[in-house]
C-alpha cells in the first residue's frame, strides 16, 4: 500500500494521500444507498491566456466524449444504462469531474471517470460539435439581461485578467481553439499531484482507497513541474458603463474588488507596486468580514437589501448580491432588476446601502443575526452527499484544507462590528457600475 498518511478530522472526514500525490477524502454516510464523488484538478480558466479563453470549458465539454477505448456513445451507454450521472465542468479556479451512483455501481463508474480524466481522446468531430454548441451558448447567454450586465461588470473590473470573461470564452477565442490546445492543457494540468478525490456516501474509506489505488495508483507524476501562473496586476479604477437594450427591466449592478481567499503561500504574481493596484495580501479576518457583510446585505428575506428596497419600497422582485470565494481577488456585488423609470432610484439606493456599511457599524442585533444566518445557511449547504463531497474537496483543492470547515465557522463567530466596518472602509469605497436597460434610462448615467 502506497499510503503515506491517514488523518481523521471533524465530521469524520478521512484524508489519505497516495504516494503519487493524489489526495483522497472520504466521508462514510450510510443514510441512503447513494455515493457521490468529486474529482478536482487544480486547473480551471485561471490558466487560460486571453486568446485561449474558453479552453478549459471546451475540454470539459469533450472530456466525456471519447477515450482510446470507448466512443462517446459507449460512454453515455455505460453511464445511462445504470442510471448514474457522470459529468465534467470547469470553473475559474478548478476543473471538476462529478459522479453520483447507487452504491453497487460506484466502482464501475469511478473506473470510467478515471479513464476519462486520464486519457480523453478528444475526437475531432466531437470537438467540432461542442465548439459549435459553445458558440451558440455564448450567443444565447446574451438573452439574459442579468448575464449581459454581469459580463460587462466583470470586464470592467478584471480587464485582461482571466476572471474578466465568462468561462465559455468569447465567440472569437472559441472559434480559434484547436485540438492541440486542449491536449496541451490536459497534459500540463492533469497529473496525480494536482488531483483531489472527494467521496461521500455508503462506502468505507478503505474501500475507496483501494479503488482509487486500482484506478489511479499507476499514474506517475510527470518530471516537469507546472509552470508558474503569471496573472496581470489588477488596477482599481471604478467606472460606469451601460448597454442599451429594449428590456422590460433595467439591471443595476455594483461591483467592488474584494479579497481572495487568504492562503499561506501567496503567488508572486499577486503582488503589485502601483498606487492604484489592488492589494495582494489579505487576512482571514477581511475575507470573513466581507462574507458576513454580503450575507447581511443579500442573504434571505430578512436581508437588508430585501427589506429596505423590496419590502419597504417595492422597487424590485429580485434584489440581491454575492461575494464568491476565489483564489484571486473576488467581486463583492449587489444588484437589482427594476422598472426602467426606477433606474436612478435603484442606483442611488443600492449605493447608499453599501455606503452605510462604511459610515455606521452594524448594531449588535444586526451582526448577530447576520452571523446566525451565514452559519445557518452554511450548515444547510452540507446536506446531500454531493454537497459534502464538493465542499471538502474544494477546500482541499484551493489549499485551505478540510480544517477550514471549522476555521470558517469559528472566524465568523468572532468578527466584531468594528472590524466589519473597518473592512468595509478598505474595500467598499467606490463601485464599478454596470447598467443594462432601455437607452433613455441607462445612457444618461454614463455620459
Amino acid at each position: 500500500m502506497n499510503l503515506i498518511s491517514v488523518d481523521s478530522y471533524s465530521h469524520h472526514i478521512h484524508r489519505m494521500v497516495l504516494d503519487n500525490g493524489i489526495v483522497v477524502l472520504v466521508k462514510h454516510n450510510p443514510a441512503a444507498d447513494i455515493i457521490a464523488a468529486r474529482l478536482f484538478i487544480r486547473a480551471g480558466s485561471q490558466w487560460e491566456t486571453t486568446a485561449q479563453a474558453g479552453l478549459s470549458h471546451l475540454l470539459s465539454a469533450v472530456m466525456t466524449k471519447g477515450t482510446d477505448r470507448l466512443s462517446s456513445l459507449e460512454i453515455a451507454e455505460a453511464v445511462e444504462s445504470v442510471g448514474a450521472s457522470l459529468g465534467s465542468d470547469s470553473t475559474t479556479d478548478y476543473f471538476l469531474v462529478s459522479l453520483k451512483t447507487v452504491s453497487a455501481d460506484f466502482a464501475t463508474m469511478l473506473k470510467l471517470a478515471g479513464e476519462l480524466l486520464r486519457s480523453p481522446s478528444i475526437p475531432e468531430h466531437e470537438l467540432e460539435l461542442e465548439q459549435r454548441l459553445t458558440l451558440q451558448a455564448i450567443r444565447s447567454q446574451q438573452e439574459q439581461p442579468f448575464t449581459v450586465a454581469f459580463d460587462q461588470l466583470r470586464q470592467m473590473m478584471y480587464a485582461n485578467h482571466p476572471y474578466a470573461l465568462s468561462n465559455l470564452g468569447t465567440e472569437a477565442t472559441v472559434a480559434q481553439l484547436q485540438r492541440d490546445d486542449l491536449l496541451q492543457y490536459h497534459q500540463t494540468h492533469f497529473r496525480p499531484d494536482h488531483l483531489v478525490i472527494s467521496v461521500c456516501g455508503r462506502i468505507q474509506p478503505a474501500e475507496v482507497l483501494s479503488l482509487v489505488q486500482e484506478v489511479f495508483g499507476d499514474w506517475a507524476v510527470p518530471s516537469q513541474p507546472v509552470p508558474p501562473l503569471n496573472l496581470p496586476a489588477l488596477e482599481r479604477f471604478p467606472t460606469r458603463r451601460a448597454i442599451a437594450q429594449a428590456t422590460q427591466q433595467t439591471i443595476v449592478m455594483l461591483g467592488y474588488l474584494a479579497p481572495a481567499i487568504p492562503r499561506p503561500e501567496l503567488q508572486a504574481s499577486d503582488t503589485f507596486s502601483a498606487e492604484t493596484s489592488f492589494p495582494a495580501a489579505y487576512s482571514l479576518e477581511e475575507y470573513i468580514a466581507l462574507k458576513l457583510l454580503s450575507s447581511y446585505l443579500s442573504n434571505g428575506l430578512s436581508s437588508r437589501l430585501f427589506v429596505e428596497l423590496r419590502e419597504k419600497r417595492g422597487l424590485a422582485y429580485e434584489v440581491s448580491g454575492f461575494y464568491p470565494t476565489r483564489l484571486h481577488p473576488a467581486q463583492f456585488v449587489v444588484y437589482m432588476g427594476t422598472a426602467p423609470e426606477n433606474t436612478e432610484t435603484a442606483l442611488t439606493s443600492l449605493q447608499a446601502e453599501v455606503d452605510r456599511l462604511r459610515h455606521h457599524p452594524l448594531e449588535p442585533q444586526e451582526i448577530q443575526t447576520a452571523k446566525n444566518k451565514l452559519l445557518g445557511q452554511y450548515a444547510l449547504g452540507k446536506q446531500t452527499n454531493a454537497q459534502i463531497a464538493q465542499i471538502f474537496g474544494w477546500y482541499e483543492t484551493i489549499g485551505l484544507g478540510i480544517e477550514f470547515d471549522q476555521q470558517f465557522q469559528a472566524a465568523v463567530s468572532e468578527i466584531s462590528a468594528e472590524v466589519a466596518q473597518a473592512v468595509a472602509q478598505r474595500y467598499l469605497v467606490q463601485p464599478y457600475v454596470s447598467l443594462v436597460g432601455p437607452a433613455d434610462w441607462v445612457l444618461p448615467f454614463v455620459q
Partner: protein
Amino acid sequence: MAAVDVWVRAGAVTEPDEWMGMAHFLEHMIFKGTDRLPPGAFDWAIENYGGMTNAATSYDYAHFFITTASQHFEATLPYLAELLLNAKIPDEEFEREREVVLEEILQSYDNPDWIGFQALSELVYQRHPYGRPILGTEDSLMGRSPAEMRQFHRTHYQPETMTVVVVGDIPYNQAVDLVSRTFTPFATRSSCPVYMADAEPPITTVRRQELHLPRAEQARLMLAWIGPGVDSPLHNLDAQLQDAYGLDVLSVLLTEGRTSRLVRELREERNLVQGISSGFSLQRESGLFTITAWLEPENLERVEAIICDRLSELSALPVSPAELARCQRLLCNDHAFSTETPSQLAGLYGYYSVIADPTVAATYPQRIRAIQPEDLQRLASYYLSPYHYAATIIRPA
C-alpha cells in the same frame, strides 16, 4: 435538519378569471404578517434561527416551507401557523407588494423561455385556468382590493385544503402535537367567486402560433400534448398514475441523456438542435406533455417533422427491453437522488397530498418498474399524436 412544508389547495385554478393572479399575490402577502407579527418579523425570526424559508404558487397549490436545524423546529413552526391562519393583508402593504409582483411580471417578460411556455399553455388550454398566467397581469392585479384578498384567504386557507408535512429528526408524537396546537383556530369561513369549469375543446389539429422576439438569440420549438390528470371521471387513481408515469418513461426515452432518441439523433448525430428536452407535468385536472428544442431558425420545420415521425414510430413499434430498463433505472435512481434531504421529502409528500394522496409518493419506483413495452406503445398512440398538438415557435426578430 428538519423541514416543514405546508401545502394548500389554493392555487391559481381556484381563481375566477377576473381574479387572475390572486393566489400568487396572496402567497406574497402571507409574509406581510398578522396582528401579532408585524411585516418582516416572520422572516427575521426564521433566519435568525439559522433557517431558511420561502414559498411558491402553482395552478393546483401554494406551499410555504421552512428548513432549520432540528432543535429549532419547536420554536419556528408556530410562526408559520400564525402567518398562514391569521394573515392580516394590510391595505398599505397590499399596494406596496403589488409593485413587487409587477416587477416579477416585468422580469418574466425578459425571459424568452417563459414567454414561450406561457404562450404554449394558452394555446393548449383555451378555457381552463391552466392556460392563464399564474402571476396574473397588471390589469387583473390593479382591479383587485385587499378586502377581496382577505375574502380569498378566508375561503381557501381552511383545514380541509391544507397539509402540514414535517420531515426530520423529530419524534412523531411531538410533531403531531405541535401541529395540532398551533394550526388552530382557523379564520371564520368566507366565500368568494369560484372558477366555473367550461368544457375544454380537445386539440383536433395542429394549433400553431409564432412569436417574433427581438431579444431572442436563437429559435425555440415548443410542442405540447394534453395528458392524463389525477382527477378523472372515468378512471381510478391507479390507472391515471400508471399513464402519467408511463409518460415520464417516454420523456426519458426521448430526451434524457445522450443515448436518448432525440438527443442522440438531433443534437449528437445530425447537429440540428442546440438542446432538446421534454417533460410530463402531472396536475389534478389535466397533465401536460411538452417537448422543447433550442435551435437555429432554419432547422425549425425539419426538426418538427422529425419529432413527429419519431412519435409515430413509438406507437408503431414496441421499445426494446434494454431501452425500457435504462429509462426505468434512470427514473428510479433520480427518485432516490432527489429524496436525500428533509426538505426534498417534505416537498414530495406535500405535492402528492395536494394532487392525490401522500402515500402515492412511496409507490413511485414500483409503479415505474411495472411499466411494459406495450404500455408505452399504447400511451404514445393515445396521447402523443403527431397530428394533434399545440406548437409555439419563437423566432429571433
